[in-house]
């Protein structure tokens, strides 16, 4: 992982030279070292050098108060809170849909095509409509963003849970029948615990999607805060360093969120003696 990071950094520095060179005002005789040092220290480069992005992150995070809009952690939190709320919506909606699909025969036939169709609509088209419609209803702020994040993230959860709830083999189901177990007991003691092994892969995808959803939702709303808003203003005013810093922060955020899922998975794994 470290070596991949190293290779990427070298490539990044190398790529910054030809991309930024046309906008430099250097005479033709300038050597490579002059060219490079100029290309890596521009104010508004096409591609900022890694150390510029790191410096931007560093000053933004450490030298501004947490509540200041100049601190990226503030924006990260705005986006993360919307993504987490969206993930909550996705979990409730995704699991409820899966239970419906598994238990109600007519829903199995009628609902699944709609669930799949919902994912073919580009989120960029849906997001402004959701924001506008909810806005006219007086709902603004976190909720519209969470709704869009949830809309993206419920799908992998539904798919995983449908598979998981159907995973018990005939013998395991027959066993329940010999105990004359109530349907609720079959759910809580067999289908649900079995489906957890199928929930986590879906959850990992859902976490990433909910972050994408929250960021995309911030683009059309003219949001003042959030990584999406930061990306938008960055590109609007040609502040490429700010833009890249926000991008890196978004990536870091998804890594943190995935670590959270991994920890939850670990806890379940531990309670089950080391296997899902």
């Amino acid at each position, binding site marked *: 992982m470290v070596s991949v990071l190293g290779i990427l950094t070298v490539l990044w520095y190398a790529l910054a030279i030809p991309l930024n060179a046309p906008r430099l005002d250097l005479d033709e005789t300038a050597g490579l070292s002059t060219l490079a040092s100029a290309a890596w220290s521009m104010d508004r480069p096409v591609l900022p050098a890694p150390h510029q992005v790191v410096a931007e992150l560093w000053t933004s995070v450490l030298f501004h108060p947490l509540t200041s809009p100049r601190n990226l952690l503030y924006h990260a939190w705005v986006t993360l809170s919307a993504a987490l709320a969206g993930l909550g919506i996705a979990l409730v909606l995704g699991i409820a849909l899966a239970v419906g699909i598994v238990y109600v025969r007519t829903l199995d036939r009628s609902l699944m095509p709609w669930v799949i169709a919902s994912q073919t609509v580009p989120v960029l088209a849906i997001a402004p409509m959701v924001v506008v419609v909810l806005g006219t209803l007086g709902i603004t702020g976190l909720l519209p963003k969470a709704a869009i994040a949830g809309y993206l993230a419920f799908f992998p959860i539904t798919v995983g849970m449908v598979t998981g709830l159907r995973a018990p083999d005939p013998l*395991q189901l027959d066993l329940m029948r010999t*105990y004359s177990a109530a349907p609720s007991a079959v759910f809580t003691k067999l289908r649900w615990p079995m489906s957890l092994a199928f929930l986590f892969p879906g959850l990992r995808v859902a976490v990433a999607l909910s972050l994408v959803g929250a960021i995309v939702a911030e683009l059309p709303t003219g949001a003042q805060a959030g990584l999406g808003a930061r990306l938008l203003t960055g590109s609007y005013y040609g502040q490429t360093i700010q833009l890249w810093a926000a991008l890196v922060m978004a990536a870091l955020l998804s890594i943190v969120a995935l670590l959270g899922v991994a920890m939850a998975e670990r806890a379940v794994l531990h309670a089950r003696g080391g296997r899902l």
Partner: protein
Amino acid sequence: MGESALLASETVPAPNAPVVVEARGLGVAFETDGQRVNALTSVDLTIRRGDFVSLIGPSGCGKTTLLRAIADLQAPSGGTLTVNGMSAAEARRARAYGYVFQAPALYPWRSVARNVMLPLEIMGMARGERTERAERYLRLVGLGDFARKFPWQLSGGMQQRVSIARALCFEPTLLLMDEPFGALDEITRDGLNLHLHELWRRTGMSVVFVTHSIPEAVFLSTRIVVMSARPGRIIDVIDSPLGAARALGIRESAEFLAVAHRVREGLRAGHSYD
């Protein structure tokens, strides 16, 4: 159990013990691709309290189907079937039997003890008693030290013993076993057979036992039901002359070999070479 047990000649269950399972003209048919296949035809069988009945026969003779019909896991298509004087469905709802499948069918996310406790939880037993029962029945199958392990940490034979403890822990008077030792090696199987025999002797419950193995059937049973395929039916019912107390050594005795011979003859007669 020592060799002296061989000499003990207790009589097998009294002929007038209460009837546990009664089948009259029982038939089961499956519908596959519009074709009707008779898995079981005109089965007459009476099983009394304390009986150990083995169902033996070639694949496709309907022995598992008969067991599943008794357990109400398979609906009969004809005839009558009562379990404890009730219909099979009523008996199932009354939790009249414990069932051991061909595979252990343990829930992998539950520890061994919690697997055993599963039926107790479903039947609403208090936590304290659940724990106590799980401990007691795990000890009974020789797995007292494995309560906190998980199924994947156990060998196949041990897993099957857990599933037996799970079937026994709510103390049903009828135990239905579908080739429970089919996938195990000979030595493990011997050990489990002896275990099961002693358990049956101690508890006085009735057992219906499906098997492929002639020695296993003869060693365990008070009655052996020999079945034949296409259509599945009973062709011989043998009352074992062997006493109730048995040790593995009994398998070398003349009585044992005579019963085994009769079972083999029955199986051969019912075998069609098509």
